[in-house]
């Protein structure tokens, strides 16, 4: 009896070990003796279409210049959540997240070396975006600016700033408008932001989830959205929606970085570096523009002058004292967002 018990225990143990060793390694990196690279790009929610197009272009570019092939695995989700997963061991060779602060979370976990912000041009931000309103065709609720979002008859869709990068940009853009509107009177600004969140109907964990709530499930009157995400909805349903550009918004700078610990372990630093570098090439900048991200290359941006509202009035994260300060004040545990949301 005992012997058989032991045998069966050993068997199940062996099975588990087999599962671990069979599948545990080799999903990323360079297989020994072969010319094949495999890298993982952990990105945020709305970049799904962008990186499908870019990965194809990069593959061609790399394979035309090198005697090796490359394959890119994507992962998408709310930016804050994605950063946390990388910090917990999701094996990203590169991260392409919604904002600097989320990349910093990976740096703080000891995976990215300090100084990554200046490793690539323009604060490691190859494309930018901003925050706009997506409303239903004809703008039935006549939503024209941030002030209208505090009206009693307006239902808002925005993701959760705790998990979503886009939602943090939304929050800060609303804050910037209120500061200007109320001459920096913090009490009035807070009251406005509080009213805004009272009007939020669905708080999804990522930008794409919020878009689906608004576009597919027809919730709410206005979606606070990445400009690229709003354009994408417009492209899919040109007759159902329109974009409203508010009087003030924020320059949203998604950040990219190499995950040093992972590339050094996998031997993928060269291909990962080129992967991020090539995002600044004219070809990639054009792909960004076609996917409704604002190219950082001025010439390419000018080509898309009829798509983007280039006269939009934008504040930047520096107006909030940088991400560390903004995050501590607004989004940290017990910060302004928590206080506002608990009161509701």
């Amino acid at each position, binding site marked *: *009896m*005992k*012997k*058989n*018990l032991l045998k*069966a*225990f050993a*068997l*199940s143990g062996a*099975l*588990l070990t087999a*599962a*671990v*060793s*069979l*599948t*545990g*390694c080799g*999903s990323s990196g360079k297989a020994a003796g072969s010319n094949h690279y495999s890298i*993982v790009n*952990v990105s945020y*929610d709305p970049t*799904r*279409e962008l990186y499908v197009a870019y990965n194809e272009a990069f593959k061609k570019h790399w394979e035309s210049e090198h005697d090796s092939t490359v394959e890119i*695995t*994507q*992962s*998408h*989700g709310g930016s804050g959540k994605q950063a946390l*997963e990388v*910090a*917990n*061991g*999701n*094996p990203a060779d590169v991260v392409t997240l919604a904002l600097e602060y989320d990349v910093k979370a990976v740096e703080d*976990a000891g995976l990215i070396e300090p100084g990554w912000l200046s490793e690539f041009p323009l604060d490691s931000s190859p494309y930018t975006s901003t925050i706009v309103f997506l409303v239903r065709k004809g703008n039935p609720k006549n939503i024209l600016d941030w002030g209208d979002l505090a009206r009693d008859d307006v239902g808002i869709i925005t993701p959760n700033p705790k998990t979503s990068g886009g939602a943090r940009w939304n929050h800060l853009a609303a804050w910037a408008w209120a500061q200007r509107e109320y001459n920096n009177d913090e009490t009035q600004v807070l009251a406005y932001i509080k009213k805004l969140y009272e009007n939020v109907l669905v708080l999804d964990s990522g930008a*794409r*989830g919020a878009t*689906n709530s608004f576009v597919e499930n027809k919730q709410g009157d206005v979606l606070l959205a990445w400009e690229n995400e709003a354009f994408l909805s417009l492209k*899919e349903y040109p007759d159902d929606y329109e974009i409203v550009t508010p009087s003030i918004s924020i320059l949203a700078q998604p950040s990219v970085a190499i995950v040093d610990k992972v590339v050094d372990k996998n031997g993928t630093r060269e291909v990962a570096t080129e992967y991020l570098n090539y995002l600044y090439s004219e070809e990639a900048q054009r792909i960004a523009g076609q996917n409704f991200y604002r190219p950082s290359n001025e010439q390419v941006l000018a080509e898309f002058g009829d798509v983007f509202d280039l006269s939009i009035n934008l504040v930047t994260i520096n107006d909030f004292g940088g991400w560390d300060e903004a995050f501590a004040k607004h989004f940290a545990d017990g910060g302004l967002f928590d206080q506002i949301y608990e009161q509701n």
Partner: protein
Amino acid sequence: MAKETQSQTVGAKPSPVVKWLLIGLSVLFLFVMLVLPLITVIQEALRKGFAAYREAISDPDAFSALNLTLEATVFAVVINTVFGLFAAWAVTKFRFHGKKLLVTLIDLPVTVSPIIAGLIYVLTFGRQSAIYPFLEEHDLRVVYAVPGIILATVFVTFPFISRELLPVLEAQGTDEEEAAAMMGAKGFTIFRKITLPHIRWALLYGIVLCTARAMGEFGAVSVLSGHLRGQTVTLPLQVEILFGDNKYMPAFAVSSILVILAVVILIVRSIVEYIGKEKK
């Protein structure tokens, strides 16, 4: 069976109005909650024709998701069968302190939210854990890799088999095994000749339930997956990803694979149940 006939003869004759009302409500409920959505899935999956459907389900990512789902299910069933047999055997055939506690612990995965189960494993095997340096040194990846998905699936399904076996073993008692032992039979012979025939159908039924639950698991797997496309994405996760990608027809096509698997399991379940009853 006996119970049902009893209540019918003993109780007062129920009014036919109540009877048909209840039947009608049940059928309506099942139709709205179950049949209608299932029809929608199949209809949406085939909206763009069979060629588009075939293309959607033969996509490499969908194929890899199917593979991973089947792999996790096989591991969950094998491990939980072994574990379920041991646990049920230990609890019903021996007397020891903490028996109640053990039974309660076996039930834990039913009561704990799958999300928590996922987080537990992230904390146990993730980069922040104490054993991570050891795992890294030996190039073993658990979370955000296939082993994590298998672990999560095993966790959420492990009560299913032991729970089916417990009542049967309990009812059977230990007399027959003791008699066999006195006549000189060895442990495994006793198990094979005495115990197994009694529990065979309960075991099969448990395996069917375990399979169904393993294939559909979403929450715990979602936390542990990392959503690496084509690598750590199971069928339910692939459906969610396709929805997010605005690819509705393919999302329904992949859903239909899960529906088909579920229907197959239902049929197997009915057969097992039927034969099990006949044998009794």
